């Protein structure tokens, strides 16, 4: 597990001015990198340093973001999941942000406890870790013990809710300019993120949701949830059972057998299938930090910060296309693409054809695992296909230059969920029985 760098504690930038200046600093650095890049490309016709340039920019932006706490970090996290929106170099860097943030001092943790319960942690537990054992996106997790039982206690940074909106405004120009994304898409995306973030700053809400989802999913095999403790929780503090086990990367480092990896993958598949197709609500982002895996392949699920409801009419539209006959039915496909705002009436005929093909292949690829009894997510060719599609220059160009947002937000979110899920299954190299509630 990640340990937290103690020195960084002294330099948590927090004020708006400082955040701005930090981004300005990054901006300057990114441009220097570009200048270097152009200088090289002028001198050397053969220069193919684009990948390298992305890498340099990524570490600068990452450095800046990792010094921020709160929502900027969360945005970095969400972007890191969204293979669609970021070049590969950013993704690698940002994935680190899931595991590191500057910690709060223990006296401040005490203070937060006293505010919530009138008592300090040592009065409520037998032991309480002096340092955070893990960073959460908007807080940190301590390990506590009472009567021989272990608890995970998540404590939120002060002032997070207040800074959500202002942070997002700061992240936007980065996303637009430095990462070369389309402004409409980013606006689109930011709005959604803001709503989710604000609801995530209320741990009481998280507790209620967690209890609900835990009950609803009780029947799914090989997954387990912590119990949550209301009288040891507040808006800023969330207490639950400690789950023993490993994060995905630690789990994989121990070379688990194919059988065990399949078991984890299966549990993950069924957990998401149930959420999307039965509850029609997604309760946890499929990013590796949200899962703790036990040695024998049980999937522990923590963190229900945001719930995304999938509207019924959207659901109908989106998943109708999963059925190959519907996808091949041009009339039907046109309707759906229009109502999902993938394609607009005003688009030129040429663009229409191009976009139709693009979204058709995208959805078909995403739907493929549903069409066979079992699916081998370890198969590299499948993921090469996804990457090729996402990184196709022409596709990127047309989407980026589009003056209108392409795809309604529910669609973006669901795509992200499936991409996230598939990429974890891919890392597990799991063979999964992909039956779905949708087809039954």
């Amino acid at each position, binding site marked *: 597990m990640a340990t937290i760098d103690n020195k960084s504690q002294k330099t948590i*930038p927090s*004020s708006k001015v400082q955040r701005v200046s930090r981004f300005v600093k990054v901006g300057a650095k990114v441009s220097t990198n570009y200048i270097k890049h152009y200088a090289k490309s002028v001198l050397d016709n053969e220069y193919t340093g684009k990948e390298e340039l992305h890498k340099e920019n990524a570490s600068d932006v990452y450095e800046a973001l990792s010094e921020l706490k709160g929502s900027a970090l969360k945005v970095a996290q969400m972007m890191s999941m969204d293979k669609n929106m970021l070049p590969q170099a950013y993704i690698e860097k940002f994935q680190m942000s899931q595991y590191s943030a500057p910690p709060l*001092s223990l006296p401040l943790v005490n203070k937060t406890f006293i505010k919530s319960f009138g008592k300090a942690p040592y009065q409520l537990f037998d032991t309480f870790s002096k340092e955070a054992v893990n960073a959460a996106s908007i807080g940190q997790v301590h390990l506590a013990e009472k009567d021989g039982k272990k608890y995970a206690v998540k404590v939120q940074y002060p002032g997070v809710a207040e800074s959500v909106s202002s942070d997002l405004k700061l992240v936007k120009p980065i996303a637009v300019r430095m990462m070369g994304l389309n402004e409409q898409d980013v606006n689109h995306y930011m709005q959604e993120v803001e709503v989710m973030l604000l609801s995530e700053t209320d741990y009481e809400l998280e507790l209620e949701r967690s209890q609900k989802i835990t009950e609803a999913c009780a029947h799914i095999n090989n997954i387990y949830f912590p119990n949550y403790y209301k009288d040891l929780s507040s808006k800023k503090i969330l207490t639950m059972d400690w789950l023993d086990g490993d994060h995905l990367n630690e789990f994989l480092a121990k070379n688990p057998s194919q059988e065990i990896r399949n078991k984890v993958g299966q549990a993950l598949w069924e957990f998401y299938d149930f959420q999307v197709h039965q509850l029609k609500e997604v309760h946890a982002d499929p990013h590796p930090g949200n899962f703790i895996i036990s040695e024998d392949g049980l999937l522990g699920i923590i963190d229900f910060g945001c719930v995304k409801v999938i509207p019924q009419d959207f659901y109908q539209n989106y998943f109708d296309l999963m059925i190959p006959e519907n996808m091949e039915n041009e009339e039907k496909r046109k309707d759906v693409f229009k109502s999902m705002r993938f394609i607009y009436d005003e688009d030129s005929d040429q663009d229409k054809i191009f976009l139709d093909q693009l979204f058709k292949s995208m959805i078909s690829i995403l739907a493929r695992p549903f069409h066979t009894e079992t699916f081998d997510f370890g198969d590299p060719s499948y993921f090469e296909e996804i990457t090729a599609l996402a990184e196709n220059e022409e596709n990127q160009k047309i989407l980026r230059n589009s003056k209108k947002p392409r795809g309604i937000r529910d669609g973006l979110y669901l795509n992200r969920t499936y991409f996230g899920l598939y990429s974890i299954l891919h890392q597990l190299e799991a063979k999964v029985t992909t039956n779905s509630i949708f087809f039954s």
Partner: protein
Amino acid sequence: MKKFEKKIEISYINYISSNNKRPNTLKEIFINDDSDDIDPNTISSLTNNTIENNIWSNTILTSIKNASSDPNFQEYSVREKLLSFFFNLSVGLQQHQDFFTYSSNIHSPFELKEVNDRREKIVETITPFLTQLIQEGISTGEVEERMFIQDYYINVMLTQLFLIIKYWAEDTSNEKENTDEAVEKSVHLIMDLIGPNFTDSAFSFAKFIFQK
């Protein structure tokens, strides 16, 4: 006697919290109290000013006491001890928010003497604690011995104390969360200033203060 003084303080705090002004005479704070433990001699020996100063001083003592009652306190670094004191202080101020907000807002020039008296009383109360922290810091290496300026360390910390109190009184953020941030930042700043390695937390704190 001790008990009665405590009672005076509580009644005085209650009076200001509900009336948002000082009593004309101290008898007023007992106007609804007909118990027989009220000692007129003690009352006549006190003024509004002395009572308020005692409340401030006692709150600081309580904060030190509460901070040190944390079983981890002995193991804390000086930095953490100072943080712990300030967080306990802000809890203490919060307990009687109306009183302390009222009492911090002394502006009129006629009250300058009160401001000075209070300052002196607070300085007198907190100095032994801060001196001890500085000495401890020197022996653990957290605080650098610097000829000439070392005597000013205590003043730096006192200034910080008054800044934090002022910041707290004016903090309109939800549950005064900004004060918590100000405490974390300013303590890190001070400890860096007087510590062996000066880092960029000065910059960080200055930015924080100017934009909030």
